[in-house]
C-alpha cells in the first residue's frame, strides 16, 4: 500500500490531479494503490477511515483574537 502522506503531497503538486474529477482521482488512487481511507474520502467525502488509519486528532485553528475580549482591550488604546 502506498504511503498516504507521500501520495497526498504528490497529488498536491500535480496540476493534472489537483483539480481532477472524483472519477479520475479515484482511478489514480486505485493505480497508486492508495489506502482505503483515502479512497473512501474521495468517493464518499468521509474521512472517518482515513482518521483511523493515520490516528488523526482534531486540530484547533484559531491563532489570534483581535478583540481582546475579557483579557484586555488593547485595540481601544
Amino acid at each position, binding site marked *: 500500500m502506498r504511503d498516504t502522506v507521500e501520495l*497526498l503531497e*504528490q497529488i498536491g503538486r500535480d496540476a493534472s490531479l489537483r483539480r481532477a474529477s472524483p472519477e479520475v482521482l479515484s482511478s489514480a488512487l486505485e493505480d497508486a494503490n492508495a489506502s482505503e481511507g483515502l479512497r473512501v474520502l474521495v468517493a464518499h467525502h468521509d474521512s472517518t477511515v482515513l482518521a483511523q488509519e493515520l490516528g488523526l486528532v482534531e486540530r484547533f485553528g484559531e491563532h489570534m483574537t*483581535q478583540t481582546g475580549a*475579557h483579557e484586555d482591550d488593547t485595540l481601544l488604546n
Partner: protein
Amino acid sequence: MNLPTSASTETLSGSIACVGMGITLGSHLTPISRNCIETADIVFAALSDHVVELWLERLNPNVVSLQPYYKPGKSRMKTYREWVEVMMAEVRAGKKVCAVFYGHPGIFAWSPHKVIEVAQAEGYQAYMEPGISAEACLYADLNIDPGRVGCQSIEASQLLFFERQLDPVGYVILWQLGVVGDRSLGRFRTPDAYRELLTERLLQDYPADHEVIVYRAPTLPVEGPHIQRVALRDFPLAEYTGHETLVIPPAQALKPNVVMRARLDALDAIHGSGVEPSITA
C-alpha cells in the same frame, strides 16, 4: 575615524523564521519556507489539520506541535503567550528555529508577530516568510478581485464587541465564525445562537434575502473548496465545522462623487486631462 564596536553589530547565534505552510497539502508551501523548515534545528507547528502536521514531520523530524497548549476553558491569549515563550527559549539557547503556521503566518495570528518583535528586541535574527492564506484561496475559488470595489476583512467577533461600520459597496469577509462572540477566549466553538446574533447585526446593513457565501478552503488536495450560498437570514443554519469564513458580496452600487469629480475637472483644466488628443481628418 569612529568604527562601530563589535558588540553593537554582533548578531546572537539563535534565530527564528516564521513561515506559512499554505492551506492545501503539497500545493502551497513556497520553496523558501520549505527550505526554512528543512534546515531548522527545531520546528514549532501551529497547523489546522493533523495530516498536514504529519507531512511537516517528513520535512523535518524535529517538530514540536503547539496544539497541546490549547485547553478548554483556558484563554487563548495565555496559550499564545506561552507559544512565544517556548519558541524564544530555543532561540535564546542558540537554536535555528522555524515556526510554521497554516496559511500565511502573519494573518490572523498573534504569536508570529510577537515572537519576531521580542526576538529582534533581544538582538536575534527574526523574520517572516509569507504563505498562501485562506483569503488568497477564497479570492481564487470564488473568482473575487478584492481591488474591484474594495474588501473589508474583519474577525466576526469585532462586529459584536465593537461599533464597526461595514461598507456594503465592497466585499465584507468575516473570519473565525466558529468562536464568534466568545469573550472568554476559552471556547473552541460557540453555540448557533451566537451566529444568530451576528446575523442580527448584519441585518442592520444588508437585506435579509441578500446572498452570502460560507466558504472553507481545502486542506487536503483530494478535496475541493466548500462553498455554501445562502440568504443572509439563513446563514446560522449553514453547515459548520469551525473553519468557515463568511463572504458578503456588495449590496449597493458605487455612487459617483460629484464634488470630487468637479474638483478633478478643475485640476485637469490646469494640468491637462491625460487623454490623448483626437486626430481629425
